[in-house]
């Protein structure tokens, strides 16, 4: 399987969206609309999911085997496609979470240290 794009390679937003989707699905299967709402609510509406990116991301994650999907009936009694985490997706979530923490820590260190380091 050829990777579509290297993951760590720029496009932080996209990588982050993937991470957020995976994290959201830990709570259980959900369809696209729910996923978008959960992300927005949980982030106290700080993040707005661009809907045009959500579905490409979902399909990409599914193509990679991190998500599985099936059609079902939603809480509104409407037909909807439900996504759920696969075992592979769960592993990726923990790996990506680790990467995220290391990166934010590193950025934090740099931002926090910037004043002291000029003194050297």
């Amino acid at each position, binding site marked *: 399987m*050829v*990777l*579509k794009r*290297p993951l760590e*390679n*720029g496009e932080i937003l996209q990588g982050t969206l993937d991470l957020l989707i995976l994290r959201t699905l830990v709570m259980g299967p959900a*369809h*696209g*609309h*729910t996923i978008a*709402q959960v992300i927005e609510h949980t982030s106290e509406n700080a993040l707005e999911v*661009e*809907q*045009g990116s959500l*579905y*490409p991301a979902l*399909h*990409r994650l599914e*193509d990679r085997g991190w998500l599985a999907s099936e059609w079902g009936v*939603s809480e*509104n009694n*409407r*037909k*909807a*496609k439900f996504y759920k985490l696969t075992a592979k997706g769960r592993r990726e979530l923990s790996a990506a979470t680790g990467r995220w923490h290391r990166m934010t820590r590193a950025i934090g260190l740099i931002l926090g240290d910037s004043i002291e380091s000029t003194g050297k």
Partner: protein
Amino acid sequence: MSLRRIMQRLKKDEELAEEIESHLAHEEDANAARGLGADEARRRARVRFGNARATRERVWLDRSFPWIENLWRDLRFAWRSLRKTPAFAVIAILVIAVGIGVNTAVFSVINTVLLKPLTYPDPQALVELVNVTPQGNFGGASIPKFNTWLQQKKIFQQVAAYDFGGAGMNLTGGDQPQQVQGIHVSAGYFALFGAPVAAGRTFTQEEDSPHGGNVVVLSYGLWKSRFGGNPKIVGSNIQVDGQPYLVVGVIGRGFVTDTPADLWVPYQFDLASQDMANYFTVAARLKPGVTISQANAQLRLAADQYRRMYGADSLPPQGGFAVQSLQESMIGDTRFSLLVLLGAVGFVLLIACANVANLLLARAAARKRELATRAALGAGRRQIVRQLLTESLTLSLCGGVLGLLLGYVGVRLLLRINPGDIPRLGENGSAVTLDVHVLLFTLGISILTGILFGLAPAISASRPNLAMVLNENSSRSGLGFRSGKLRSILVIFEMALTLVLLIGAALLIRTFFKLQAVDPGFTTKNILTMAMSVDGDRFQKTAPVAQIIRDGRDRVMAVPGVVDVGVTNCLPMLGGFGMTFDVVGRPHANSPFTGGAGFHSTSWSYFETFKIPLIRGRLFTRQDDGSAPGVAIINEAMAKQYWPKGDPLTDRIQIGVGAGPAFAEPPRQIIGIVGDTHDGGPNRDPEPIMYIPLAQMPDLETALNSRVAPLWWVVRTRVDPYALRVPITAALQQASGGLPVAHIRSMEEIEARSIASQRFNMILLIIFGSAGLLMAMIGVYGVMSYSVQQRTQELGVRMALGAQTWKLRNLVIGQGMMLSGLGVVLGIGGAFAVTRFLASFLFGVKTWDPVAFIAAPLILCLVALFAVWIPARRATRVDPMTALRIE
């Protein structure tokens, strides 16, 4: 992209559209829950989602991107970047084309000879019947054997006998008599090989029985050329050897046999015959489901049956019968020599790969900033490797296309050189064609080549030290130590492979000269030979044949410029007959005869014509004819082998013991011993031969001989023998009452043919070795001139500090020759390991022949020296000031 993938993607797209609808519906629900009117809820949902079509397109593209788009982008990029360095691209493509071309050429021959199935229907079931002896399996059958095999109905569907050479027949009764290739066959022959019948029918069983009448089946080619494709020919008579023959059928166009035939006549064997002479070939078609080993088991029983029927002497106790695949029989030991050639071209391809890899490394060094920039801008290592591999595959596929052309032309040129007796090549190699197997082979090695020479440079280029490269301010330094070392290793590798090829070529050259130096035991200078077929009723007895020989000799001798004329049934170096003999009065151990020897019938003037020296006794004279007591002459090899002590001239021999009634005759007095001739070719030791006068053969033997062998006329001339061709053939036609002659060749041609396969192999290895040498030269030149360029600054400093120019020159030469030296050491080691595969091609030369093992490395070193000389001189011309200012 496959249709299935497209269908799958269409389905997924539909699903996505539905999914988006579902999303919008949920959004609408949410909006409605917040108290918006239906229309407004709907409108806001759509606005918030944006362009649904764009989303679908994006997912669609996401799915297609990696396969098509990336490849297309890489290819375009490769094309652009190769166009920027056209000289490099052209050289690389040419080198690859040569490597792939020679492989394609050799493979297309192998494909034709070894891989293509026989053109007959269901060819796997076709087998040849062979005699099992302690020395190996040999073809050849007699009537009693054929009779025994015909009865093996449990294992064979069909069994048929046919000539393996044929004496040639004369089509008379036109304006111009014509000698054609006529093959005797048994009735089952056409069914066995599935020959299509264009008109009429093939032989009936009655026609293939004794006194079955004169019937003939024509080939399509002869029917068209001689009889204008006349459909009424079937049922009419044609003149063959002066006799009317009824044409019963014409065989269709597609039927090609390995000994091409113009017409077929039935053997009309008397199956009750006790004639033990082996003079034809038998093939059979196995019954469906019968394996070769099952057939062989049955044939062991058949051998016992045969012994009971024809006597214990008819088959030695260790002897027996077996079958082998007809295709294997035809290929024989050609397989091995073709595989050796394939190995040699494999070497050429490896050298080509090493060479192009070297060029790519040099190019990567020049592009290192481009690559480093790409890496710095975020291209992953995988992407860079992929990009570089796409470039090398582009190169190798271009080289492959050109190589296919080269191979196609090359194989025609190769086959112009007489390849000796490689079977199944067709007339002038016409059977060798480009088919799908050859195309696949070429495509396969092109891709393999591209990966082979592209991978190492790509990997090495994909890990540059970014900071170092980008911070450099000039193009002075290379990819650093690793790449330099890699290039040196490649050059050493090239040198070693080239040396192996050169040593192989040197061994074959030595072999060829040794072969040419062998004295064949007879003169080949100014000798013209030609074949006269004496098949037909006129020549069933010895007297008329002897008459033609006498008259013909007298008339040809009258042609100005002719020195001598001889006649024989076995021309030297064209193979001959063998026969058992018994020394009269000598007790034998457990065999019914003393031994076996070559058996030639000649005219009395044969030895003088060929200048075969008389050692002792006397030669035949005109008086040694049917009315005189029987005489024989033997050669030295026979005298040495069978008369280690004692005088052969005091003995009489009985020739053809146990060989059937055709050879029944009183014993012959040995009257002379002549010098040995290399009849099996110069690389074979002379075999024992006994000669008898043609005029003294028993009638039945003459009749048999006339069917299986022509009379060979041998004319020695004072001038170029071809100049006398017309008067000689005219004289012979007059003497024989209009018999045509064919196969007019000089003895020098026949001698050249006898070493044609050695010459062919030699020429090929010289070509391959030279190609390798040229590439190795380019390789070592490239590395050394690059190294000089790298060290311009260092050399400038040295010069500024007062170093002598010759010292600088020797520095470069020393470095270059060091590489060559390592290559030579490795190559000699490799050659020691590999030349033993050549052992069966060599003659008079050991596989470790010191001359070859010294000469070839010397040539390689000289060429390498020449190649490093140019960069070495450049090193001495470095201007110190410029060199220092480059910085």
